[in-house]
Structures are given as structure tokens and as C-alpha cells.
């Protein structure tokens, strides 16, 4: 059984038929051709699948696609202005915060949401906001340096 939904993804209205049991993560990756959002647990534990959903950073693996009807969603593919990287993407690269990169889309989306809601987060606030995103490679040090470099520049 499928349900037709309409969602605005990265500024574009998309119509898609989704299965009743399907997660938004699945719809993004498999039906809408947006594999940038990653699937590493489907249990809300790793943050790899984070998207901005009607203004909130959420794990798309925990959202039923059918419930996303009418929602506005930003995925990692929608971060940055065209070919121009978002400053967070720039600084993640400059600080060596990307190794395998599987966690990176989740950190970028969560981080962009953090910076939109709090442009000068303190270190404990950064850690807290990103504590739902697991990175198995970097040990978080370089990711922290990236955020600190960005938020201490007095932007």
C-alpha cells in the first residue's frame, strides 16, 4: 500500500508515492535520488541521517515518510549556495574533520542547524548539539576545532 505525498526538498516541490512503513530516510535515498543523507543505524542513534525538517534537526530514519507530507526538508545536498560551499563545509575541510566521511553529512546538517539557531555556541554547547552524531574515525577533535574556528571568528 502506498501513500502519495508532496514535500519540499532543498527548495523543490517533489511528489512521491511512499510505502506506509517507509522512513523519510528511505524515501530520500531510494526514491528521491538524494543518497547524501546516510543510513548507519535506522534507530536514531548515530545522526548520520540528520535533515532539517520544518526548521528542526531530526533523524530522518525516525520520521515516517507518510508523515512528511507537506513538510519542508533540507538535506546535505541543499547546504551551500550552488557550487559555493557553506563556511562550515570549508572549515571542516580545512581542519581535517573529514576522514571516511560517512558521518560528515550528518555533522554538516546538524552543525548548520546549530549555527542558524545559535551563531556563537560555546564549546559545551557545540558538544551537546553534536552529541547525537557519532563519528567513528576522527575522535571529534578536528570537528570541534572546525566549529571553534568558525564561531570564534566573530562572524
Amino acid at each position, binding site marked *: 500500500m502506498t501513500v502519495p505525498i508532496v514535500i519540499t526538498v532543498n527548495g523543490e516541490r517533489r511528489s512521491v508515492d511512499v*510505502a506506509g*512503513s517507509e522512513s523519510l530516510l528511505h524515501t530520500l*535515498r*531510494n526514491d528521491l535520488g*538524494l*543518497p*547524501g*543523507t*546516510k*543510513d*548507519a*543505524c*535506522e*534507530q536514531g*542513534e*548515530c545522526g*548520520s541521517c540528520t535533515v532539517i525538517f520544518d526548521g528542526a534537526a531530526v533523524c530522518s530514519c525516525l520520521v515516517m515518510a507518510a508523515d512528511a507530507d507537506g513538510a519542508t526538508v533540507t*538535506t*546535505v*545536498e541543499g*547546504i*551551500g549556495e550552488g557550487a559555493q*560551499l557553506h563556511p562550515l*563545509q570549508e572549515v*571542516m*575541510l*580545512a*581542519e*581535517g574533520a*573529514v*576522514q*571516511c*566521511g*560517512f*558521518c*560528515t*553529512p550528518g555533522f*554538516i546538517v546538524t552543525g548548520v542547524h546549530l549555527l542558524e539557531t545559535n551563531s556563537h555556541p560555546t564549546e*559545551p554547547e*557545540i*558538544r*551537546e548539539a*553534536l*552529541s*547525537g*552524531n*557519532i*563519528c*567513528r*574515525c*576522527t*575522535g*571529534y*577533535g*578536528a*570537528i*570541534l576545532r572546525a566549529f571553534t574556528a568558525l564561531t570564534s571568528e566573530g562572524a
Partner: protein
Amino acid sequence: MTTRTLPRVRGGIGTSVGRPDGEPKVTGNFAFASDLSSPGMLWGATLRSPHAHATLTELDIGPALAMVGVHAVLTQDDVVGSPMFGQVEQDQPVLCDGTARYWGEPVAVVAADDEETARRAAAAIVAVWEPLDPLDDPERAAEIGSTFREMRIRRGDETAEGSVVVEGFYETATQDQAPLGPEAGFAIPDGEGGLDLYITSQWVHVDHRQIIACLDLEPDQVRCHPAGIGGAFGSREDISLHIHVAMLALATGRSVKMVYDRSESFVGHVKRHPSRMWYRHEADEDGNLVKVTARLILDGGAYAHTSPAVIANAAFFSVGPYRCDNVVIDAVVVRTNNPPAGAMRGFGVVQACFASESQMDSLAEAIGLAPLELRRRNALAPGDPFATSGQVIQGSLPTVAVIDALESIPIPDPIPSDDPRLAPGGTGLTTPRSAVVRGVGYAVGLKNLAFSEGFDDFAEARVVMTPAGIEIHTAAIEVGQGLVTVCQQIARTVLGVDRVAVVWKDTSQIGSAGSTSASRQTQMTGGAVHDAAVGLRDQILSLHGGDELRDDGVYKQGELVATVNEICSDGPVECHVRFRHPKTYPPDADGQGEIHAGFVVAAHRAVVDVDPELGLVRVVRVDTAQDVGRALNPQAIVGQLEGGIMQGMGFAVMEELVIDGGVIRNPTFTDYLIPTFLDAPDVEVRIIEEGDHWGPFGAKGIAESPTISSTPAIVAAIRAATGRSLTRVPVLPTDIVGV
């Protein structure tokens, strides 16, 4: 006058130049294996054994085959080639051969139109089991001779005695690599009986060898391609779904994709061996080691995988980076019905280092020496015989330098912060500041570089000049560690050319680069790239009578004498190299000989805050001094050290795959805890550069060191804070509270 000094090229060695794959990774455009798809492809799924040990009395695939959208259901009967696979020993059936030997062993595979249908079809297969008693006790397995390999090391005088004796029994639990990217494979049939396979792998050539044997195909009929990998840490050194997805593609004539979900990933790859270790250290009154006696048991689970090599590492590194003339080691890796174990970062050395460094602390205390002072007195140096194998240490080994550098890192303010977020357990738990005790602990770890014991270890690379720039051709696997960057840096520095790209090749296009494991690729593939770049440079310079290569061509005394287009007028110019490290040899009956090609050493200091009443720990910081040979990319080194320390910390205080009667009880990220941003300690790094005797520019591999001695350093710090003996990792709250 012209001298060939290292060219002043941008992005050469010693710089922290960024990754070429960085931009696609931050924009979501990097294709991981699990992102691959094609129109009309099928999805694969696996039925697994619900028992750790059982006889399969009936298997009826009919109900699955009858489902709409199901295109194939395959069992062991459908394996046309070798029924068994395995990297070292071919002892594992491709699919269940009538007996399940571990919980989650693959029984049948399905291809269907979509993921959901494939999973439902796998569940619809009727499998009838007669459960058997699982052999889940490793000591029982050792008693009855159910073993993969036994190691015996005898050096010096077995009857030697020291006046100070410390004994201990240690245990380590099962750790999972838990790479964030799941196992994934995408198989595309070529219509002529062969196929292209894009798989998460650490070594496509060794996969290829096993895959063609099981499929009964010629080598050129199967092309294994390196695919985008979301971390590995050893979990991808052995075959998981590779043969299954290939069989499904050949059976259906369609492209097939398979991806494990997290729970399946936990059962679908090999893990770190759990261990039990008994040790006796004997020393004289000044703290000089006289004799080390140890018995180690590692549980290899149901199939061999790399267990024979893991136990050798555990045995040879059981004394650590210290001199000792009398050594008696017996080590065994057993076959049980527990989940198969294999490679994980540190590869046997992690377990031994936890025990032996705990012993060194006990010895220091018994003698009345500071922990690092005892280690300094016994520190292994070039020219010394290695305590276990007796081989004379060649190349660099700055054991004392890493200890001194670690000590020079300032120790933090002893006052724990008032911020409840920084308290053990965090804000959610109720540790009052007054209850917190701080502890500091140390450990030093030694690791071998590349493959040992006479293995024919090599890496191939081709460096090619094209009109568009330099290409490096390799099948070496980039798992995230930054090999791709280091290869570029090496080629730039050797050639003096800025435009360098790494081009991944499949198994039909280039020979093996060997495994991305054993801290070996910087030295091995890096060494091949170095030598191929030197060969290419010399060939081009001599042909065109130049003395320098630049991006636009060959120069002689500052004048352009041949453009790149002229150099490539008959097509690209290339140099292909098969690089080998210094020869090693298998051990003799006493475990003696030139077993290892090189060594790397590191030291760690941990600072922890503990609430002894609640048993909560916060790891405040873990500092390290690391022998690197030569630093090719300092930023990437720091990244490896911080990431490795985090895995060592996970093993010290939280990561345990709970296995009960052979069954994994916590195969999810909800129940298998991985350190998060809030758990992450601060890390300060000191890099020690003393060039090694082989490898590009004297560089060593460093990726395993941070996971080896960080764990015992953290446990030592918890002991210092609590006074508990803490002989098992991970240290649980109950161990600290003492209930």
C-alpha cells in the same frame, strides 16, 4: 650547478594538505558502496542461523520463491566452485553446509525487486534446526584441542628468576569495529558469465582470489573494484557479503545490491578477539626485567579468518617495548561457536598490551619506581634484541624519546570543573563535585609494521605522466585514513609536479596493493608510489636530457627543454613498481627469528575523573607521544591519533559486545555504546620524527598505535583514582564500585 634537492612543490610531504575527496564528502556527493544503484537492480537479503550451534534438518526455499518479486533464492547447493572460503584457511562454507557453527551464520540469500521484499522473502524460507550444545568456553576449547594455532616462544633461560615477582590474570571483552558505513556490495553481471563487483573491502585482491574460487570463474571474469568506504578498522579484511551478492547477480543476470543494516553488520563481520591472559613478570631490585612468563588464550570463534596471524602478534608483542632476556610465552587461539573474530585495529597487540602494561604498573609499584621510570629503564632501542623473537631491532625505535616527550606535556589543573556537563556521568547523573577523584595513568605500546612471519608482502603502484598531469594507479583501499592524500604528497615531492591524481584501479587493471591494515599502506603503497615516481622522473629526465621536472615539462638549468605534450607525444609515460619491505622469516620452533619488518612505538597518559560510589568515569584527557618515522601529513597524523585514542577509550570504559551462549545480546547502537562528542577527551599530541630504515622518506605507519596503549593508560588512571585492581576491560561501573 644543479643539485637534486626536494622540489619546492605545493602540497608535498610534510604539509597538512587537504584530502582530494574532501569536497564530495562534505557535500554528500561522495559515492559510498551503499549509495550505488542502477535502474532495475535487485536487492539481496540473507537468512541467518538463529542458533550458535545447530544441525539444519530441513531447508525449504519454496515459500520464498513463490513470492511475487522474488528472483532467486540460493543455498550452499548453488555454490558451483569451492564450497569454502577463507583468507588464511578455507574453512567457512559460503552458506550453511548443514551445520550452523555461530549465531547469525548465513544460510540462504535472496534477490528481489526491492529491499523489503527481499527481507520478507528471506524470512519466509523454512529452516528447521536441531540445536546442539555450543562450545562457548575458550578454555574448554583449548583443553580439547579445538584450536586454530598455538604459539610457543622460548628465549633465554627458562629457570631465570627475579627478586621481585608480580603476577596477574587479565581479560578483555569482544570489541566491534563498528565502522559507520555498513557492509555493502553492488554486483553488475557483464552478460558473458562474469561480473563487476563494487564492495566494501580492505584488500580487493585477496577478496578476488576467494570469490573466483567459489564462483569457479577465471580471474579476468571477476573484476573487484574499490568502492567508497565508511571506515573499516579491520572489519572489512575478511569476506562478508561479497560471494553472496555475486552469486545472486550471476543467477539472475541482473545487477544486485546488498547492504547490511546495523544489527546485521554486528553479526556480519569479524570482531576483536576476546582474551584471557595470565602473566608473571620478574625483575631485579632496580627494576630491570629478568623474565616474563605468559599464557594467552584468544577466542577466534567459529572460523579461522586471520586468527593465526592475530595470535602470533599477541604472542610476539606480549612483553611490549622492553628488553628482557628470558621469555616463556604460550599462546593459543581457539575455535568455538562464538562469533568469528579477526582483524581489528591493533590486531592482537591490544589485548597483550593491556595485560603487560598493567603488569608493568604492578612491578613499578612493587619496586617503588614511578611508572614511566620503570619503562624508561627497560626501554627497547635499536640494536637491542627483541624480547620475544630475539631479532635485533633495525631502523628507528625512539622508546625513550616518546616517554620523555609524553612527560613534557603539561598535566592539567587538578581541580575538576564545576560544570555538571563535565562530571562523570554527565548532567543526567548525580555525581556531586565532592565525590569526584582524579587519577593519572600511563602506558607504552609497541606494534609491528606491515605483515610478518615471511609473508610475501608487496604493493603495486603505477605512476603515469599524461598531458593532464600525473596519475597514480593503485588498488589500495582508502578507508578514510588519508592514503589518497599521502600518495599525492609523495608523488608531488619526488616529481616536483603539482597536478597529481590518484586513480583507483580494479583487480584486472593492476596487481595487489596488499591489505589496508597492519599500519602498512603509508609505507607499502606509499613506498611503491615513491619508487615508481623516482623511476618515472629518472626515465623522463634522462630521455630529454633535463635536470628538473615541473608541471609544464622537463627543464635543464632553468630552461624548458621538453613540454609535457612532447614527453607524452607517443602516449602516457609510466613506471610500474612492485614494492616489498625487508624480508621476514617464519619463526622457528622456539618462536625465534627475523619475524617482523619494522616497529613503531607510542606512549599515552590518561587523566580521568571518577565517582567511586556510582562507578562513573569521565576521561578528561589522553595525551600521547607518537613515533612516526617521518611526518608526511601532520594533520592526518593527529586525526589518526585522536580517532584511535577514542576507540581505545571506548574499549577501556564502554565498548563490549555481550555474548551469551554464542549469542550477541547487544547488536545495536542503542546497546553497544560508542564514545560520543560528550565523552571525547581532550588530546595533546607530540610527534617524534626519527626516520625508519624503509618506507617513503623514513615514514612509519601509525594508525594502530593510538588504539594499543591508550586503553591500558586509561585503566591505569582509573586504578590510580580508585585503588581497584581492574583486570578486565571494558571497566564497568560495577568493577569500580566493587559489587
